[in-house]
């Protein structure tokens, strides 16, 4: 136990003194601070009496009445644009678009037929879709007027409002999606990055032959647990720094963000989810870090690490993909996710996602955590065994079967 503490402190101090670790954390905190201060920063450059230049949409119609009617409907439909009636010929309109004085133009043949002119058509250009909705309304109103209704009556029919209320008894996936996504991504990044760091750390000790002294000074179990726990705390510290600073800077700029629903949904994470995240982060991190450490101990050269850890990385990426696909499909309670919630290598992400985005019975959570906890301890001791066999094997990286055989006999 004393050795474990010594190793833990030494390894943890190593992270705190690691320039890359400190640099990345500081960079992330600064990046978050900049993002959170954006409304205040942009506010500094905004002037109240000088409205910003808005993009221009031109409407070209040979019939001036048609042009005026379309402009009347386009004005409210394109609030971010300045809708103008074009002057001159169609060539003049095209020239204005290419020289940049207008963004795009609608050349109207009739209320139901037009040509859209744009310089570079963006992948996300939704102007035609908006225009079509508006023009359909124009046609419908025109038809209603033709059938004897007054324009006011027709407009009232078109603007009929439906009142609705939604009562969410379980979880609101629309609201939870964003923060679940962020937390899963954080879990994914931290486990993958730190897992690699643990593997590299062990392989470095082996390749620098520091291992020769270490194995004679400390028990493999203490070495493995000390290293992995230190990296877990370092990862956790980085997560706390990133999430904590995000929360802090958000609260400092809360008024500037106003009612931005996206930002509000990210920061409206229930406290209980932080608890679950912590639990699944720690257990998920440990089980993978143990595996990474064990694999690192079998590699003789640092160059071998990337190939050696590939099977574990694949396993983890598969777990991540299952979760991501289920999240985007909107059904996080599908059979695959339910099965993955009880497999130790996938449950940290699968069960956590289910908890965030649907209603999971408490006994399923308890069972999932119990399986994960037991497996983590088991994998920890197995990894320590592999470590004790692996660290003194030099030369070509042994096959997994040979390692397990050696572990069995040790």
């Amino acid at each position, binding site marked *: 136990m*004393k*050795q474990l503490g*010594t*190793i833990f402190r*030494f390894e943890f*101090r*190593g992270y705190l003194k690691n320039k890359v670790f400190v640099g990345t954390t500081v960079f992330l905190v600064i990046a978050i601070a900049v993002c959170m201060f954006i409304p205040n920063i942009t506010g500094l450059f905004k002037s109240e009496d000088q409205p910003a230049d808005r993009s221009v949409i031109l409407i070209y119609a040979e019939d001036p009445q048609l042009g005026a009617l379309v402009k009347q409907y386009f004005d409210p439909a394109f609030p971010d644009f300045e809708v103008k009636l074009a002057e001159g010929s169609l060539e003049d309109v095209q020239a204005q678009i290419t020289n940049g004085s207008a963004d795009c133009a609608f050349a109207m043949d009739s209320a139901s037929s037009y040509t859209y002119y744009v310089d570079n058509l963006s992948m996300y250009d939704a102007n035609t879709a908006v225009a079509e909705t508006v023009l359909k309304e124009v046609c419908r109103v025109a038809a209603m007027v033709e059938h004897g209704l007054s324009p006011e009556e027709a407009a009232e029919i078109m603007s009929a409002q439906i009142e609705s209320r939604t009562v969410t008894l379980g979880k609101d996936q629309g609201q939870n999606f964003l923060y679940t996504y962020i937390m899963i991504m954080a879990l994914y990044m931290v486990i993958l990055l730190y897992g690699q760091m643990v593997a590299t750390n062990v392989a470095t*000790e082996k390749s*620098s*032959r*520091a*291992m*020769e*002294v*270490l*194995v*004679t*000074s*400390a028990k493999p179990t203490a070495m493995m647990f000390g290293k992995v726990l230190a990296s877990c705390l370092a990862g956790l510290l980085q997560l706390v720094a990133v999430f904590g600073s995000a929360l802090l800077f958000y609260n400092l700029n809360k008024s500037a963000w106003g009612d931005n629903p996206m930002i509000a949904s990210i920061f409206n994470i229930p406290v209980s989810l932080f608890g679950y995240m912590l639990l699944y982060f720690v257990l998920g991190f440990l089980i993978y870090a143990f595996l990474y450490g064990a694999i690192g101990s079998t590699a003789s050269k640092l160059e071998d690490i990337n190939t050696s850890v590939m099977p574990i990385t694949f396993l983890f990426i598969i777990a991540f993909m299952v979760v991501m696909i289920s999240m985007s499909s909107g059904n996080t309670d599908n059979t695959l996710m339910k099965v993955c919630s009880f497999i130790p290598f996938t449950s940290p992400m699968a069960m956590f996602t289910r908890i965030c985005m649907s209603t999971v019975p408490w006994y399923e959570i308890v069972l999932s955590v119990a399986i994960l906890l037991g497996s983590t301890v088991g994998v920890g001791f197995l990894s320590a065994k592999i470590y004790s066999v692996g660290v*003194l094997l030099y030369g070509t990286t042994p096959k997994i079967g040979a390692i397990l*055989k*050696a572990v069995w*006999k*040790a």
Partner: protein
Amino acid sequence: MRLELKNIDKAFGDKQVLKGVSFTAESGKAFGLLGRNGAGKTTSIRILMDVFKANAGEVLIDGKPIDYKKIQIGYLPEERGLYPKKIIIDQLSYFAQLKGMTKKDAVVAVDAWLERLGMTEYRNKRLDTLSKGNQQKIQLVTALAHNPDIVILDEPFSGLDPVNAMLLKDVVKEQIAKGKIVLFSSHQMSYIEEFCDSIAIINAGKVALHGDLYDIKRNYPRDRLVVSTTKPELIRRDFGSACTETENGALLLQMASPDEKSAVMKRLVEQYDVDEIKVFEPSLNDIFVQYAGEQV
């Protein structure tokens, strides 16, 4: 204190690496563990240090199974290496703490050793900024800082310049004088001869020779004579194939049995112009080649 490895067997998979290895070493004396590459020296050392468990046999201290919580072992491995990017005092105190010292005691002990080895100026430097020889001196501190009862030095002199080799010799002598068991493993026979009172030669996983070095030499068949003469050709002609030449130009006469010693000496003195005659005593190198080379 008496360290004893008794009938140690060890196999890795199907390969039997050690077959009934036994030897003893005593405190206040240096013990030489010799053998060719791959003979089983490092495996024996690792079993002694509890890195590997033996398949059979035991490690005893004064006749009782060794208690690793009470007996401290210091080890200078043949494959040198520490943390190249870490500060020297940090890693040396870390290794001493792993051996059970408190942080405060570890720093004090490490500082004392750095001073003893003339390395204090490198205390707060990274290991990879030091020369190979200085790195080796730093590594020696990991073996000695925690004041071990048993000191195991694997090829301690390799890579050291004569001045540092002299410093290390003094350190080793101090350790022996302090009553430690010093276990040497080296291929540099001159150092083993200089320090070790007793040796064991391991050959293909078995102890081929074990005992007091002086006794081994004395018990070697005394059936050869070393003769220094100004006219070697006369003796060579008379003794024929029984007469060979040594590396330093003296003649080596092989007798049929040690009993002929007096008669042959008398004959040489009476018949030839002889400067010096003595009974041939093998060097450790000769003994090593004979016992460790048998498998070749």
